[in-house]
């Protein structure tokens, strides 16, 4: 096909050409009739000709993609070989999305001679011309074995192939994926061999059904809506506990993101960032490394539930999230690849499932994080939170949009952070990282003490009273010494160590030192 022959012009002409084209020899009519006869006997017989098209497209443009390498009829013409070799590209540019058109053009299109005459008419469509396929040499792809393709550019000698080979070429021919000589040989053969012509027609028609997969991103919120509709119609006998729902939702959201990313993106660099108590710190890994990290740390809950430890025998010496992650990374000889997705997802499904059965009311095991422990409920909220935070790390690394969690899930994550603050404050105080405070009293457990009011704005927000003096003290509005207001997502970024406490955009009123301590304590909740 020459530059001037846009696929549309090609197709357009082809249709008319079958009946009136000047370049269409009598042989064309004969061949078309022949195919019609054959077609009647096969599965497509019910929809010959324009019937296979969508409605409203009996006209030529719908044919855009059909006549890739010349019709089967072209075999009688000396142009056909050259045409067939290059014409294949037209098919791609045409409309792979138009089902059913492929077969048509293939069966009835006298592409060879007609398109030659069509040259000028097609010029206007030049922009739609696909790149010629001959540029493989420039593409960096491995070169194909050139052996049989050493023919001169014009009128290649006829290739003589045996029937079995010709038959085996039918798929490649239908896809316009064989050499010019082979195309010519196949097409010559189709004139003589009914069964092959029949199959050729069927396969060419099938090509028209190849379509880009519908890769529309599923709306992540659809999952929640669909599942809720189901559960409203038939209440579950074994529900997923409320406190597991955020993890379930976040894992599903991350998995949907992972489903859409390509092989190379799995190796995109990601910097894990957290606040180590005194300042920001980070660790470099990849997208796949992040999933390995989630797999390793989710494994803490799996172990607490008696499920398999994803680390197996290499379990980190100290059992902290960081220790486990480093151990997992070390244990694999190669950097993690997309193959970690399966085990990570399987484990997250297993956790949700197991927790649905255990419920968590009685004998709730404590999940050990190495230095500290969390109840099963809080551990699952923590894992949901981490899943979101790292999903966002990944999304940023590969430049995908990613939304915050559903408001009620965000709310329970914030609630977890707020509940952990008093203990973190106390730990920091003990480590000399937080000021004892000018007015510090030792407050007996259960007694009200100095209190900071944490006001979280935005959806998922609320108010939390934070006991400042000790984890055992009761927070009380009457003892409020400071008031901090910030956005919910901002608070989560602070607690993830992604925003330095000094820079957390907070509205602050009251005891500045108390506020500073609380913001630093929030950042210190973060870890790898």
């Amino acid at each position: 096909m020459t530059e001037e022959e846009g696929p549309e012009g090609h197709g357009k002409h082809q249709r008319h050409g079958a009946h009136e084209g000047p370049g269409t020899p009598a042989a064309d009519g004969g061949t078309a009739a022949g195919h019609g006869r054959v077609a009647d006997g096969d599965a497509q017989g019910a929809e010959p000709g324009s019937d296979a098209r969508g409605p409203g497209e009996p006209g030529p443009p719908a044919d855009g993609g059909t006549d890739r390498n010349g019709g089967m009829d072209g075999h009688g013409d000396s142009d056909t070989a050259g045409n067939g070799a290059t014409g294949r590209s037209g098919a791609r540019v045409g409309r792979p999305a138009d089902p059913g058109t492929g077969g048509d053009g293939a069966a009835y299109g006298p592409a060879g001679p007609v398109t030659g005459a069509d040259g000028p008419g097609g010029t206007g469509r030049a922009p739609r011309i696909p790149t010629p396929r001959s540029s493989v040499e420039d593409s960096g792809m491995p070169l194909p074995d050139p052996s049989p393709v050493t023919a001169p550019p014009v009128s290649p000698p006829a290739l003589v192939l045996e029937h079995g080979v010709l038959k085996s070429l039918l798929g490649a021919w239908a896809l316009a994926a064989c050499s010019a000589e082979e195309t010519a040989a196949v097409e010559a053969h189709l004139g003589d061999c009914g069964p092959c012509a029949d199959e050729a027609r069927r396969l060419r028609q099938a090509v028209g059904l190849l379509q880009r997969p519908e890769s529309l991103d599923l709306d992540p919120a659809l999952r929640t809506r669909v599942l809720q509709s189901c559960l409203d119609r038939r209440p579950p006998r074994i529900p997923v506990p409320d406190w597991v729902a955020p993890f379930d939702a976040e894992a599903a959201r991350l998995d949907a993101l992972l489903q859409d990313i390509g092989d190379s993106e799995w190796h995109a660099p990601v910097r894990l960032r957290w606040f180590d108590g005194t300042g920001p710190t980070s660790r470099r890994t990849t997208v796949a490394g992040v999933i390995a990290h989630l797999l390793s740390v989710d494994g803490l809950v799996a172990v607490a539930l008696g499920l398999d430890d994803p680390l197996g025998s290499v379990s980190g010496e100290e059992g902290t999230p960081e220790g486990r992650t480093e151990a997992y990374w070390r244990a694999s000889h190669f950097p993690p690849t997309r193959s970690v997705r399966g085990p990570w997802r399987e484990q997250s499904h297993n956790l949700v499932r197991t927790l649905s059965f255990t419920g968590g009311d009685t004998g709730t095991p404590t999940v050990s994080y190495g230095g500290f422990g969390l109840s099963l409920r809080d551990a699952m909220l923590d894992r949901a939170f981490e899943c979101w935070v790292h999903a966002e790390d990944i999304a940023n690394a590969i430049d995908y949009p990613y939304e915050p969690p559903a408001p009620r899930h965000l709310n329970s994550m914030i609630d977890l952070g707020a509940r952990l603050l008093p203990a973190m404050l106390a730990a920091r105080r003990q480590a000399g990282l937080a000021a004892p405070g000018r007015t510090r009293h030792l407050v007996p457990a259960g007694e009200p003490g100095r209190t900071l009011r944490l006001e979280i704005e935005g959806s998922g927000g609320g108010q939390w009273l934070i006991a400042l003096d000790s984890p055992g003290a009761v927070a009380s509005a009457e003892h409020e010494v400071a008031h901090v207001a910030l956005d919910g997502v901002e608070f989560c970024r602070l607690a993830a160590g992604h925003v330095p406490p000094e820079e957390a955009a907070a509205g602050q009123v009251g005891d500045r030192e108390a506020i500073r301590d609380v913001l630093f304590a929030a950042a210190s909740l973060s870890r790898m």
Partner: protein
Amino acid sequence: MAKKDAPPRWDRRMQQRLARGEAAALGECYDRFASLVHGLAHRVLGDEEAADGITREVFVHVWEHPESYDPKQGPLRSWIAMLTHRLAVQRLHAAGTAALAQGGQGTPEDLERRVRQASIAARADFIVTSMPVPLRAALERAYFQRRDYRQTAVDLDIEEEEARRRLRLGLQLLSTAHEAAPSGVPPEAGEAW
């Protein structure tokens, strides 16, 4: 279609879990099949919101009537695809009929044709997503990446003869999309996909 490489054990187990009302199983089922369901529904209906609606209907049906799936008849995946196909085609048909009744353009024959086209396109999608990976990979190279069969063979590290075989077999499978559904009549349960 591709029944042989389905994991019947997983399917049976999923059915049992759904039947005993395990919400976590519903979530897993959604996670595994939602993009298939939504993609097929979208292919038939060409509309995001309508595809969302079909997705909901499909999973509601799966959740309310897990017993209507018979593992002996084939993989759960095929059953869900068929259910999606049926519901989506029904909806397309109903919407088209309603439009005609209100004086919309076209004839009932146009509608039948449109429904049939959509139906074939959706079945083709399902065939492509369900065919053995080596066949799909070969078609992907030859069609979307415009590689000829020799290049395809090099890319996939197979013999040229094997590349030809895969392309042909892949298209043969795909061509079965034209079978089954006659005119606008949605395929009934149990009909071959």
